[in-house]
């Protein structure tokens, strides 16, 4: 690809992403531009904009221009703030993001309180959480996971960028209580057999404590 051809492609990608109403995947950009290989152009643009007031970012495998974070204070005023999430919603969102895919019962087991349907609805309405299937256990509960929009909204390249996720996983804090209990009491050290992400929790046997008691 010659210098000027790249330049033209860079200009085309730049114009496309500026005009786009939604973040676009490299594939979508390529399709829009008639099948060109756009990654070199994206890289060139990202570099070009790295220190400007506007930056080209890739979150959740989608590209978009957005203002530089250090200018937030200039832009925030007079601007509608994103809807503030309730504490319950932020907790549920974190649980879904760090444990996905996760069923409602699993969310409730972690929070120790029943999660109203409304909380998940709010997250789904925001476009951050969606139903991704059913767990193949009795009752076939629906399971939830985060969306690319979630990653984009929170400036995450992928779920691996979730703050502290590696540490939490290494500490076994993303494993179900039962697993952690087994690991502790069976004498084996919890850390050694830990590395695999336990993102396929077993059937949820853990009933919130208070309910256990009332069931007695």
């Amino acid at each position, binding site marked *: 690809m010659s210098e000027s051809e790249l330049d033209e492609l860079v200009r085309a990608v730049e114009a496309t992403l500026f*005009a786009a109403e939604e973040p676009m995947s490299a594939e979508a950009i390529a399709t829009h531009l008639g099948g060109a290989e756009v990654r070199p152009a994206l890289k060139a643009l990202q570099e070009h904009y790295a220190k400007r007031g506007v930056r080209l970012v890739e979150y959740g495998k989608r590209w978009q221009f957005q203002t530089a974070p250090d200018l937030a204070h200039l832009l925030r005023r007079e601007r509608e703030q994103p809807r503030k999430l309730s504490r319950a919603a932020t907790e549920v969102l974190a*649980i879904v993001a760090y444990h996905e895919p996760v069923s409602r019962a699993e969310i409730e087991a972690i929070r120790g309180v029943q999660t109203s349907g409304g909380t998940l609805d709010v997250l789904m309405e925001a476009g951050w959480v969606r139903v991704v299937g059913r767990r193949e256990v009795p009752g076939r509960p629906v399971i939830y996971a985060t969306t690319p929009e979630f990653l984009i909204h929170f400036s995450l390249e992928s779920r691996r960028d979730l703050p502290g996720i590696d540490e939490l996983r290494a500490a076994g804090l993303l494993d179900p*209580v039962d697993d952690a209990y087994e690991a502790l009491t069976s004498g084996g050290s919890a850390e050694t057999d830990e590395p695999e992400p336990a993102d396929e929790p077993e059937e949820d046997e853990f009933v919130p404590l208070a309910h256990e008691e009332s069931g007695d």
Partner: protein
Amino acid sequence: MSEEAIAIDPSEAEAESWDLPAPANDADALYLDLDGWEGPLDLLLDLARRQKVDLKSISILALVDQYIAYIERAEALKLELAADYLVMAAWLAYLKSAMLLPKDEQEDPSPEELALRLQLRLQRLGAMREAAARLMGRDRVGRDVFVRGAPEGLRVDRKNLWQCDWFELVQAYGQVKIRTQPVVHMVRDRMVMTLDSAIERVSSMLGVTLDWMELRDFLPPGSDRRLRRSALASSFVAALELARLGRAELRQEETFGPMHLRRIKAS
């Protein structure tokens, strides 16, 4: 995390020194916060956090005492507490008493196991609480970073690109022709008895006898199914026509039964 830090020995836990024994005004603050809590685990976690200690090394016993004390205080203040809080308080009281009993008198699951599970749960909830806070602290679209305010938008208009080749075209025309032409042959193939010939045949056969004859006896011999059906229909109409002209009379014993006809003598 080490096993020693997790395993709870009641006596050891008791011996732990708490940096901040909850003072009275701290407790007052607790109940003011009540609206913010969602459930017993929440309150327990918050109590643990107020100790500013690692959840791995909290004393379940100390936590139990504080929780129960808190609930009692709230009740004294006539605060309406959700049933879950009270159930948890009762459960914790039971757990505490069990933990204080000699080990050999304990049933399964042991109070240690229950306490450890409770602690593991609090750790997990605490981890998620913290993760949620860190997540909310990231650069968020619409708060810290902003997308283009007035994007022109990309529009893709779909256009159908119809496909058809020469053979399909010619073949289609051939099929239209097949549909409209060769069928003519099929009609010529078909043997039918016309009404005229049926009338002729029936009236001439009626002239032979004065007895009742069944309609089927008038049909021409032959095994062609379609010709027989045509002949039957035509002969039936012929019989009706002859009856209308007063040259024959018809008789049928029952519905769908055999039809008989007989000549009427010309007067």
